[in-house]
């Protein structure tokens, strides 16, 4: 199956008009030895075969509608209302490109203006751009902005920031030979006194995540004060759903707020595409990376929208641009805009509270089980929390046993935090019903009850799996 519409006759007519004997002649400018490639590729598939092929691959995966999942850690399973997919899949949105010609792209441009307004409202900051690749690259670009703005070459990041975000940050800073200093964690949050001891006038920015990777709430105001006292910027990486209830970064003095808008109407898609958002105080506007849509007027005085402040961008400034990014994640920003419009002012607050209530219910129930505890005491949290497992039970073996019961457990933390190798990060969104939470709690209870005879339990589980 291909999508080339030419008939043989049309091709002949076109070749005649061009004045060449064959299509091959059009490629003769390419050195002959380069034209001999014969890549080993499979034969063409019809549409029906294609559908079968991908159904086959999809069928080998266990997805979040089949299993009762408690994974979060940067990617969240929220309900997506049908209006989001149905409107965003309209061909006029889907198959257009960057709005270079504003007169023929007002739909996309107005959506971006609305998206930017929504991001400003959520974050409490003055200006937001049209989106970034994802939360992690948005965070890295925020650090680059801070370095440019303060002309200081050191960045401090809390150990409670998402480990993969910190990894991306490190990769982006390395070529600039900028120093990346980690602020230690203490009981699940940034160690504020360690930050105070280690910060100096060479630090361009302090980075915190709110709620942090463990789901805990940071003392953001205290951290902000410490950063600002040294003339450093505060960068806050935030979960947009949590902002229905939590203080917006602008309120605690963040100079830059970033995050991932995947939770706003975008499917997990095994980690991408997602969509970063990026908001700043007004003073930093002209140093921002990325596209910006602005309102102006047309010849007849009507309101209209256009990409603006492009003098920051690579196609004008080339090597002196604020970033090399030349698009946004438009389709996903559109989905976030539709999602937030459908959710509305009250809806976002209610949704955030549902996440809070359900995750607290789950945590209380789990902590009431014998042997399960939380390493982080009574720290306030949003929709994720860390659980330490009873002795003799490792996160991987627990997850294996949960999986046999149709449950995808939490994220084992040892991979990122060796000091927490006996702990897991659980996420509970509004998408979890009480029954699903109770099923998890019941399974944890059953699995941990069998602990003294762990080997026998494992044997029984394996036998059951083989039978099925």
């Amino acid at each position: 199956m291909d999508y080339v519409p030419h008939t043989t006759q049309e091709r002949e007519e076109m070749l005649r008009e061009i004045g060449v004997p064959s299509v091959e002649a059009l490629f003769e400018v390419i050195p002959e030895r380069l034209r001999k490639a014969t890549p080993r590729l499979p034969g063409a598939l019809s549409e029906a075969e294609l559908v079968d092929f991908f159904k086959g691959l999809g069928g080998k995966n266990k997805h979040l509608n089949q299993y009762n999942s408690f994974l979060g850690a940067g990617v969240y399973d929220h309900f997506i209302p049908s209006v989001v997919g149905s409107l965003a899949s309209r061909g006029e949105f889907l198959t257009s490109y960057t709005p270079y010609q504003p007169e023929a792209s007002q739909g996309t441009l107005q959506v971006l203006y609305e998206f930017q307004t929504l991001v400003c409202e959520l974050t409490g900051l003055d200006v937001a751009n049209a989106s970034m690749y994802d939360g992690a690259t948005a965070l890295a670009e925020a650090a680059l902005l801070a370095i440019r703005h303060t002309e200081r070459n050191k960045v401090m990041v809390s150990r409670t920031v998402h480990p993969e975000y910190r990894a991306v940050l490190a990769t982006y800073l390395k070529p600039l030979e900028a120093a990346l200093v980690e602020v230690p964690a203490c009981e699940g949050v940034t160690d504020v006194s360690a930050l105070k001891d280690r910060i100096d006038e060479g630090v361009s920015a302090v980075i915190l995540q709110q709620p942090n990777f463990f789901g805990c709430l940071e003392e953001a105001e205290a951290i902000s004060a410490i950063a600002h006292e040294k003339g450093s910027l505060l960068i806050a990486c935030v979960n947009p759903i949590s902002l229905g209830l939590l203080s917006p970064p602008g309120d605690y003095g963040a100079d830059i707020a970033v995050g991932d808008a995947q939770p706003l109407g975008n499917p997990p898609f095994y980690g991408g595409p997602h969509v970063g958002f990026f908001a700043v105080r007004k003073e930093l506007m002209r140093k921002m990376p990325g596209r910006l849509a602005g309102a102006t007027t047309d010849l007849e005085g009507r309101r209209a929208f256009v990409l603006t402040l492009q003098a920051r961008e690579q196609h004008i400034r080339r090597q002196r641009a604020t970033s090399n990014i030349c698009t946004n994640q438009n389709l996903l920003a559109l989905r976030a805009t539709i999602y937030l419009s459908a959710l509305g002012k009250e809806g976002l607050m209610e949704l955030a509270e549902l996440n809070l209530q359900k995750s607290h219910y789950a945590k209380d129930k789990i902590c009431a089980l014998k042997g399960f505890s939380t390493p982080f005491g009574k720290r306030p949290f949003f929709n994720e929390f860390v659980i330490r497992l009873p002795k003799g039970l490792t996160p991987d073996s627990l997850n294996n046993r949960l999986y046999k019961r149709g449950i995808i457990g939490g994220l084992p933390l040892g991979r990122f935090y060796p000091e927490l190798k006996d702990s897991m990060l659980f996420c509970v969104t509004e998408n979890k019903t009480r029954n699903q939470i109770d099923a998890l709690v019941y399974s944890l209870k059953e699995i941990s009850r069998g602990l003294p005879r762990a080997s026998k339990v494992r044997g029984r589980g394996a036998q059951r799996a083989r039978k099925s």
Partner: protein
Amino acid sequence: MQEKLIFEVSSPGRRCISLPPCDVPRKSLEKMLPPQFRRKTPARLPEVSELDVVRHFTRLSQLNYSVDTHFYPLGSCTMKYNPRIHEEVAGQEGLSRLHPYQPPEQIQGMLELLYHFSGLLKEVCGLPEFSLQPAAGAHGELLGMMIVRTYHQKRGEGGRKKIIIPDSAHGTNPASAALCGFEVVEVKSNGNGLVDLEALRKAMSPEVAAMMITNPNTLGLFEKDIIDICNILHEAGGLVYCDGANMNAMLGRVRPGDMGVDLLHLNLHKTFTAPHGGGGPGSGPLGVSKALRPFLPVPRIKAVGATGRSPLQYVWDYDYPDSVGRIKAFYGHIGVIIKAYAYILSLGRKGLLKVSEAAVLNANFLRQRLSGHYDLPYTAGCMHEFVLSGRRQKKQGVTTLDIAKRLLDYGFYAPTIYFPLIVEEALMIEPTETEGKQTLEDFAEVMIKIAREIEISPKMVKGAPYNTPVRRLDEVKAAKQPDLRWSFPVDSE
């Protein structure tokens, strides 16, 4: 036609979607969230009905030109048809509803898909390994520059600080190099629009880390000296980075790896037709030569061979000590990759050959039709796109921008304009292979009509567009008094 902002149709108390009930015992909010963490005033999201939402976004969509509705000859952006079936296969639950932290045994189908897709890219491009992590073409460039830097440092040649870039290059090339701390050295193109070998030789020095080159270049011309160019760089210890934005011209017949390039990014959304979505998401996998493999990002997919009772298994491998690290959270733009994979499988080798064939045929046909009416700065046969100059029309006081706007009136999106920078009043036209002869003829007819209009009534053309949802915009005002968000009326606060 105009559409109010969603905020302007908002009414306090109006609701759209309903949330599930709270089916767990409620705890007091104050107990869970001490006041210092609580938001003082709610975010002013719109308060609208479901029909309000549907009507608003449907109407907004209707203000756009798109491939589905209009011919979209935007040069270098490869705006080809996006098959509907791709949306369906990628959207299925078994692929879209997977969490990146599910362990490998739960997602063998996904890992198999990524592993095999990567294998197809290697075949198509003639390079031994690809990373699927980059989010877009420019992100692939950035990764490429990081790898160039790390490679030289490992060899004790960290003093190589210069990247050579032709004056016809995309703006992202110098921006990506600069983001990695490199200094950009521009080389001028020769009279034929190609890299000037003499100028290149002169620019070489022990400080050169790499050259970034686009082939076919942004004029739509094949850099026929590419093998010599690679040799010049390699002899001086430098690397060659190929910007694969124009891969559509070579699909199935020419492989960048065979030219001698060391790094290449693809734009899956362009060449392998994932919808551009109004500006993203893209996907920019990076392929590298054997010597550069150790530096690719982590994690990488590995197939672990079948042994005894355990079957072949795909896993993520993090154990590459020389890797530049991670450039993105998780693994890449999977949703886009699935569509590109579906495209290659639908077409097969013969289909891919047909793509490059028809893309080049279409561009040459259109170029032939228009060459008498607009200036053609470079006369060599083009590949998948070509660049006209509006300098003849400019003498009548009509600029390329005006021509672009007038095209909108006739129901065509405009070509890329004022790029490449080396062509005065440039119009860069890429028809792609999915457009038929009739569409090209209609477009040519309109372009010729506009050329005539310019001679008869240049003033009228300068006033274009007339038939679009809005007329020409005050871009100076937009930049001088930036209005980047809606200001709520004071009484609603």
